[in-house]
């Protein structure tokens, strides 16, 4: 099939207008407010303040209305610019370029055609007076201090909120507080207050120099903050030695990469920017991305819906009670094992899956004990030297343990050779009752076929006799440990009508029995675990949530009970976890009536990690930071990392790189605190990385911050102002007084 892939066919227009996307609306509104209010203040109110009493051009009503119209029209032009830049993601710069161009043009026209002022009015009237009054109130020191207090409380709450969120706290605090529109509004209001406060001082006096410088500096600083807010770029580059890149990955913007191989579609469009992942505590989200692919003369309409975002996605599998009762219930136990300093791991054990835990040499099994007496029997004192004690393990035809009968020899009769009484029994669910009758220290069968105990005082080769009594009749059996392994497997099915296996194990059958955990579902679904260490007597422990126990008093291995159910099933999925894990999105892809849902993980690299089959199409999805072309190539030649002696604390990172900008090759050294500046970006050593082959590398933090010069100017003016206010106020007053006196004397 010949496919012509057209990447960009989706109509962007709705009812003849561009369709704005939901995520861009707050940005657009903020821009409108900032621009409109900013231009009105700077272009209208500021000149008006200067001229209101001397009746200049700016103090005339019709001219003020004209200037307000300029502000309004330029705002609309900014909106147009933003929307026209929509296919590039609706950049903020589009707005400003659009708005500024028109403003300059209109201002130029207005200025060139300005008429000479008429006779100046002595007092502002009407609208002017109201504006004046509003500015006066806005600029009151009380109002300013209340705002300052509100800002204090606001950010105070933000720090507490940030700590409460945990690992992603700073990101969450940005989304919910510092980048929130309410904070922007307070900030804007504060800006206007400082502005009005400053203008209230008109006409300025020498003694106010410090005061004015401080407040003017703050205004400049706030403009710098806004520039920084809009213009800062933060990204990163991961490089191993010998690798080269020409792209930087964004820290704040992530995109969905979508590929539909059958249609030749592999898109990196701005529409696939993910807008739901800025707030790590937000869970339920909604973003829909419709797109159309044209191939082979046909158009295919797809829609991607993101409905869940996890900042710390963790794959989990845990047990839960079976939702519906089952004919053959399967118990399950969940527990966590940890070794000091080696972390912990969760295990889920199911009744029908006896196993040795992978990575831990510990046998586990689950058995059911219907009678309390049998449960209590587990508490017998185990003496490793006493081979008389033991157990009879009953298994079904699939070798699944279904019961254990503890053997505790009782008294012997007059004839010690007849063995010792036992009397423990077990009712196999839905099967016969098994009763251990006698115990023999050395079991042998005499010529008459009777079971005899050869050495009643010395358990050299212990054995037992037991009875299986059920609907298919009563059967007598015996089992004897061999002299080597001290255990015996008796396949009763060979001689019995019942399909069970019986394994007799003397307690001291093995001088060092393997460590094991026997989980017991007792009467009334009481959960217990029998812990056998091989060193000490087995312990019976109630398996209750958060109960912690060890294999033995000396063993470092720690086991913590998590959950246990008499009838359980496994639940698997993805949820918000703790620690440092990749973020993930739940994505549904729709095509006509077909749809498929899956999770896409952020592996911090360009990777199509999730495949979904939607109808006839395989849709491949990746979720990664947005890549931007640097405009040059960066190669990592060598990276060095030195720690302080006898410490894990990093002392030095150094990276040798080569920059290829097409015209020349330049070598550079990126040291800590000595970043590389290239193409408007700054590159910092952030973290060392390495791969399995011992190849070293580094993550470079990459940044661009255009607000810095404005900020520095603002800070300098404010700092000078503070010094003048705090320490030179009397001198300035004296100077002013001298000037006034000199003027008066003249």
């Amino acid at each position, binding site marked *: 099939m010949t496919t012509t892939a057209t990447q960009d066919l989706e109509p962007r227009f709705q009812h003849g207008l561009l369709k704005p996307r939901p995520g861009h609306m707050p940005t657009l509104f903020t821009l409108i407010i900032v621009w409109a209010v900013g231009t009105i203040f700077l272009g209208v109110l500021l000149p008006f303040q200067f001229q209101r009493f001397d009746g200049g051009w700016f103090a005339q009503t019709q001219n003020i209305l004209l200037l307000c119209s300029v502000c309004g029209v330029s705002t609309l032009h900014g909106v147009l610019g933003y929307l026209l830049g929509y296919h590039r993601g609706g950049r903020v710069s589009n707005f400003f370029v659009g708005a500024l161009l028109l403003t300059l043009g209109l201002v130029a026209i207005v200025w060139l055609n300005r008429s000479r002022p008429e006779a100046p009015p002595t007092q502002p009237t009407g609208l002017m007076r109201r504006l004046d009054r509003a500015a006066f109130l806005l600029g009151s020191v009380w109002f300013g*201090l209340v705002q*300052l*207090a509100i800002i*204090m409380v606001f*950010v*105070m709450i*933000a*720090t*507490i909120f*940030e*700590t*409460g969120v*945990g*690992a992603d706290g*700073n990101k969450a605090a*940005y989304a919910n507080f*510092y980048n929130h529109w309410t904070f922007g509004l307070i900030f804007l209001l504060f800006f206007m207050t400082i502005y009005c406060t400053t203008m209230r001082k008109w006409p300025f006096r020498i003694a106010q120099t410090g005061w004015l410088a401080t407040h003017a500096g703050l205004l400049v600083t706030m403009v710098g*903050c806004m520039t*920084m807010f809009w213009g*800062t770029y*933060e990204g990163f580059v991961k490089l191993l030695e010998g690798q080269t890149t020409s792209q930087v990955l964004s820290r704040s913007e992530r995109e969905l990469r979508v590929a539909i191989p059958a249609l030749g579609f592999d898109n990196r469009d701005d529409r696939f920017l993910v807008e739901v992942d800025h707030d790590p505590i937000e869970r339920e989200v909604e973003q829909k991305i419709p797109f159309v692919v044209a191939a082979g003369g046909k158009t295919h309409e797809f829609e991607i819906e993101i409905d869940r975002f996890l900042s710390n996605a963790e794959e989990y599998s845990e047990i839960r009670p079976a939702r519906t009762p089952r004919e053959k219930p399967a118990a399950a136990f969940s527990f966590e094992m*940890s070794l*000091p300093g080696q972390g912990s791991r969760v295990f889920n054990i199911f009744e029908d899956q006896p196993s040795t835990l992978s990575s831990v040499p510990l046998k586990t099994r689950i058995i059911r004990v219907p009678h309390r007496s049998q449960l209590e029997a587990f508490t017998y004192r185990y003496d490793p030297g006493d081979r008389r004690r033991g157990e009879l393990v009953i298994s079904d035809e699939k070798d699944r343990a279904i019961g254990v009968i503890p053997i505790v020899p009782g008294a012997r009769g007059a004839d010690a050779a007849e063995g010792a009484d036992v009397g423990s029994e077990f009712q196999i669910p839905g099967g016969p009752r098994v009763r251990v009758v006698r115990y023999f220290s050395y079991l042998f069968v005499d010529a008459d076929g009777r079971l005899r105990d050869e050495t009643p005082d010395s358990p050299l080769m212990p054995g037992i006799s037991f009875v299986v009594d059920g609907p298919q009749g009563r059967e007598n059996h015996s089992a004897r440990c061999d002299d080597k392994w001290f255990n015996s497997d008796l396949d009763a099915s060979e001689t019995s009508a019942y399909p069970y296996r019986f394994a007799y194990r003397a307690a001291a059958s093995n001088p060092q029995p393997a460590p094991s955990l026997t989980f017991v579902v007792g009467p009334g679904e009481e959960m217990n675990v029998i812990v056998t260490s091989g060193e000490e007597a087995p312990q019976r422990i109630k398996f209750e949530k958060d109960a*912690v126990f060890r294999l033995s*008093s000396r063993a*470092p291995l720690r086991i913590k009970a998590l959950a246990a159910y008499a009838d359980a099933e496994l639940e698997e999925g993805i949820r918000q976890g*703790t620690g440092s894990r990749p973020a993930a999105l739940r994505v549904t892809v729709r095509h006509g009536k077909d749809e498929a849902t899956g999770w896409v993980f952020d592996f911090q690299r360009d990777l199509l990690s999730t495949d979904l089959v939607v109808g006839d199409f395989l849709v491949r999805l990746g979720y990664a930071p947005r890549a931007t072309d640097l405009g040059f190539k960066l190669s990592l030649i060598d990276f060095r*990392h*030195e*720690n*302080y*002696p*006898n*410490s894990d*604390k*990093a*002392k*030095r*990172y150094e990276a040798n790189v080569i920059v290829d900008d097409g015209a020349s090759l330049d070598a550079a050294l990126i*040291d*800590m*605190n000595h*970043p590389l500046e290239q193409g408007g970006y*700054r590159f910092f*050593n952030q973290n060392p990385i390495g791969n399995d082959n011992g190849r*070293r590398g580094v993550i470079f*933090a*990459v*940044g*661009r*911050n255009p*607000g*810095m010069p404005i*900020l520095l100017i603002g*800070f300098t003016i*404010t*700092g000078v102002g*503070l010094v003048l206010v*705090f*320490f030179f106020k009397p001198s300035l007053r004296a100077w002013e007084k001298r000037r006034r006196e000199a003027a008066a004397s003249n």
Partner: protein
Amino acid sequence: MSATNHRILLGLVLPVFIVGGLLALFGGMGYYERAKHKARTADAHDALAKVEAEVSNGDNIEKVRRIPVLFAERVQPLDSMARQQIRSLTGKRELYGIDPVVMFLSMAWDGEDVWKKIPIFIVSFGANKSKEVFDIESVEKYATIEHVKTDKNRQRALDLHDKYTGRMGEMPRADLEFYNTYFKAFSFAGGFEEAFKFVPPTEAQRRSETTAQNDWHVPARALELGHDPKRAAELQKAFADLKTAWKARDKAGIGAAAETLTASIVALDPEDIPSKEAIESELAYNRTSPFNRASWFLIAASLVGLFAWSFRKDSLRWLSYLLTATGVAFGLWGFYLRTTLGFGVSITNLYESMLAMATATALLCLVIDLVRKSLWATIAGGIGAFVVFLLLDTYPEKFDPKIGGLVAVLANNFWIHIHVPVVMSSYAAFFIAFLLGIVLIPWTFVDPQGKHPELKAILRTSEIALYLGTLLIFVGMILGGLWAHDSWNRFWGWDPKETWSFILFCYYLILIHGRFTKWMNAFWYSLFLFTGGNFLLWTYYGTNELLSGLHSYANSAGDAGFWDNFIHERNRWFVITSGVMALMSIGGALSFFLFGKKRSPDLTPEAF
């Protein structure tokens, strides 16, 4: 009452009855406790005096002190390592009057023969709970190795390890003390074998690509590391000789072996070993304890200042300045030494930041008082700085005095040398303002308009402290931003520490506006100064302990949430102090509402 009488009343009765009384009370109690402790531990004193007499002829131990060893990320004289080990075990700079070097080596090499029954492990934080665990009497402050190393304690330590693995910060303080003490005893029992890291890495190892290769090792590994076999053998022999001579109580042998050992280490690595001058400087620092001395000069300056103010004696005023200047000089000298001995950065941890704050407090007090020709900054600031120095000296567990390295991004950085001292100076200025607030509140309660000339002078002094603090915190925040811009390309990141600096700045801006616009009278101004102390405490300590953050020593809060940290036993003192201060502020405000305004119009300067 005349103004002079009033001054005498405030200047003499207060210090004599309050400060003097408290000093007498605590001093008397301390002396009594010390005498009792000495009587109880007379055997230990005797035993250790005997050890010291057996091994030391003065000169030989001086040679031992100068042996270079790697400890706490840097090569330093054995004297420094011994002092830190002893301080870590006992919580004191010295115990039983024995030289720390002798004490440490005796612990390492004489072992339980000498030390089994000598109480050395400090049990203070957990108080009676820990004392019960160690089975020591409630009057005792120290446990012996016999008390600590029991099977029961082993199990308990293991259980605690299991329970708090990966979240040690959440361990209750009493348990933490037990846990640390148990493992200290463990090192003790091992003869501190791992402490004697005398063997530097080889040249090839140091240039190796693997980061762990610049580690230092114990003498037993000298040969396997690949050093010149002859020199390595010499070092091993010298170390063995030193140990043997110590055990044999061969005084001359100890000195000779120490000299040979030093020479062997230098022969292996002439580059990284500190110069003789550096070693001597460090020994001088250890011997002198400049910050401890500074604290005593400052409290003396404060008391002399109080007398000078009472009697209007210029000579006493200058004496007070001189004492403050001497205290400052000791503090600055201490910083100079710590900076040159360490990695070129003066403030790297909570201990050093508090030292800086206390020193800056004294320095600013001196400057303000010299400019203003006043005394109250010195009087209030001297006491404040003394208390801070005292706290640092008393709780080595919390305020670790080691000179350590900094993570890469902080080290070799131009801004750290400016930003941190500036911020600490701003804290110091606010601290002075807070202390003056305490002085001012009772005065302004009866004279809310601050009409009395003496009161006016103190108010003006506090204003200067306030202005300095505000200016410095502003500059400090900018410098921090420039640093962050240079190191992370992020001028401002709303990290809790910087956010709280901003809050502190805003708070004092409100106060300054209130004062400038006259809507705050002298009383409210003083009360706000006092409340500012609470904001300062939160910014300085609360953000470290209660909030998450990125600052170098601001990571104590870990992943536990704000409220978990808030109610944690570790922070109880902070929460109580802060709460009491807040209640006092509210109480002061209410009292003034109820009583202050009625009385204020009747009072004139003459009423004093």
